[in-house]
């Protein structure tokens, strides 16, 4: 298959990565082609060959243990619980995102693994059990000690760093999910006709378009 044809195939079928990999990484060819053919790790966004190889590699690895994943799940649902507007971090599959992102950005691996152990040691010290085995009130008791950087005690600052990292990854994972985008109220990412700021918003802020802007700028008939 010539290069241009193979690229076309690549673009049209999201999981055709296997087709292209012969030249990239011969030793892994077999497994990757199988994964590609099954579409197990297919993506809906454009990937070029080297990216497709890297994606398969990341998806074939597992970083967190079952216990660590359980702890991450419990923590993420404490950080982003369901409320009257939207679902929880677990509903939005945030733990899966965290598993992926620490593989993709390995600088997070040590702080996450060490932080999870720190959390279990503190839980054990204070309540005689690892974090996931504590009851909800005990879990919240521990979280309250590390969730507020300015008022946290000096002896738990390592926990504060870990919790801030967990809060960052949970927040980003949640608000980039379908549930989170709906919650935050982002209205775009679709074909649109930009007619400027809505009139009632201009009024709210005491702003108006100048005559020059109204004359020069592109506008669309309001349907």
């Amino acid at each position: 298959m010539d290069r241009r044809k193979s690229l076309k195939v690549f673009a049209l079928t999201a999981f055709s990565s296997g087709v292209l990999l012969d030249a990239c990484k011969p030793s892994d060819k077999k497994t990757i082609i199988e994964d590609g053919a099954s579409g197990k790790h297919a993506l809906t966004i454009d990937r070029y060959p080297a990216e497709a190889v890297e994606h398969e590699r990341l998806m074939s690895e597992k970083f967190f243990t079952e216990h660590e994943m359980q702890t991450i799940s419990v923590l993420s649902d404490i950080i982003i619980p369901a409320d009257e507007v939207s679902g929880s971090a677990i509903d939005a599959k945030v733990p899966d995102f965290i598993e992926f992102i620490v593989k993709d950005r390995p600088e997070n691996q040590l702080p996450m693994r060490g932080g999870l152990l720190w959390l279990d040691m503190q839980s054990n010290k204070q309540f005689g059990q690892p974090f996931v085995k504590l009851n909800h009130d005990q879990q919240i008791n521990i979280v309250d000690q590390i969730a507020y950087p300015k008022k946290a005690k000096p002896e738990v600052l390592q926990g504060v760093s870990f919790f801030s990292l967990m809060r960052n990854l949970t927040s980003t994972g949640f608000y980039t999910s379908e549930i989170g985008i709906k919650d935050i109220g982002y209205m775009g990412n679709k074909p649109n006709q930009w007619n400027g700021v809505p009139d009632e918003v201009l009024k709210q802020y005491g702003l108006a378009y100048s005559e020059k802007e109204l004359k020069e700028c592109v506008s669309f008939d309001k349907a």
Partner: protein
Amino acid sequence: MGDFQIKVQPKTYDVVIVGSGAGGGMAAYSLANAGLSVCLLEAGPNYDPAKNVTQLKWPWESPRRGASTKFRSFGDFDACYGGWQLEGEPYTHAPDTQWDWFRARMLGGRTNHWGRISLRFGPKDFKRKSIDGLGDDWPIGYDDVKPYYDRVDKLIGVFGTNEGLPNDPDGIFLPPPRPRLHELMIKKGATTAGVNVIPSRLSMLTKKINNDRGACFFCGQCSRGCTVYADFSSSSVLVKPALRTGKVDLFTDAMAREVLTNKEGLATGVSYVSKNDMQEYQVKGRTVIVAASACESARLLLNSKSSRHPNGLANSSNVVGKYLHDSTGAAMGGVLPQLFGRKRYNEDGVGGMHIYSPWWLDNKKLDFPRGYHIEYWGGQGMPAYGFGMGIENSNGKYVVNGKQKEAGGYGKSLKEDQRFFYGAGVGMAGRGEALAIESNLCEIDPNTVDKFGIPVLRFNVKWTDHEVKQAKHMKETFKEIMHNMGAIITWGDDGPETNYGLEAPGKIIHEAGTVRMGSDPKRSALNSFNQAHDCKNLFVVDGGAFVSQADKNITWTILALSMRASDYIVSEMKKQNL
């Protein structure tokens, strides 16, 4: 390599072009339409934004939610294949110097990445030495380039407004989009500070201009490439139509090694390695046009040594690689408290700012030469990796829905905070003119080759006091604008210890000056038509040819000069001079 042999492509072309970005794409388009046979070499793969789609995808369609990777430095959805480091293609630095080198490897090159800010140089920008005694004047002036700017405007399409400014020339503009809410606030704040704010000038089609390309549908994602070709990239707007003429053979994944010359010293073609089979090829042409990006073009010429060109091709002046310069850049960001808890609506707009500030001051009254323009951003963008992080730096500082909270936190209260702060961010960045000086350069590293065995570049670039003072002025201006808007600065309030936040050279990705034009063959590599003084059938049509680069993004001028050089090539061929 036991069976090493070079495969010679059977056809001899009128023109062989190295690079398919703005310069190479325009040359291919112009020359193919003039009836010449063209071979277009591109070091990366083929690309078509209608097929290689990331536009209108949601953050969760990227497992890393759009975060950057070594494959896409500007995020997982960015159209551009390439980055600050390419596997197996290193570059090096002289001690204590800085240069960050961004390389695109794909059809269309960096035009798949850039912000489509399409500014003409003004009359003063070609004659800076005559004004401030620094650097050199161009051998041409605005009047020489104006007709080509006009043709580029019409061919490619750009929105903006005619403001009658002395050094930011009027053009042939499509209507701009109306400012967004934060842009109206910026306009007020900047105007109070004496900073002029006008509609931006971006190459995006707010109206349809032909049947090959659609009109903008305001998704704000030009950086992802446009499936209806409503923004400019060389791949979709120049190379595609050039291919349709039937006069162009495109070779992708073809990494140029050397420009070949004969015993008279004239160019005869290009040798390249195909990344598909790692075999060596040669392609022959009557004329060779180099447009591989300023630094890659210098590298190619310096690596093309022969008995007639012992110092590298077109380098008897010894200027190739020198006068390397990038735009200056410094930025500041913050929040607009009046936008906390704002009403939601779709404000994507075009893929960039709707307003900007051209340089507004007179350097005679300032302690640095040359100016800068200001770019602005803010508003209700699509969440991506990084969104919602660092809430502990915000939610203790401001009253949220009437409640003073402790910084940090979790739970329903955290969700309330995230909603409250969304869409209140604002920021601005300066892009200024750095001086092109001889001692800032790239050269061949004597010790290092890349994976193709091609000697690599070693950079030797340092900012001078001029650029640092310019960055200082930027920060003072930004602070005043932020203050006037009622914004709270959250980052970028830098002082002398960080050179006022001045970005490392190369970081703004406006590299230029390495194969500069001039009327004196002893002090320049090219004449005023981008033609090598030392080799009449060799042309360089990328940013390398620039004598200086103004505070204007250089693409529009690359396009205009490449079109002008193409006209000249056709006319010289008609006269039998080439």
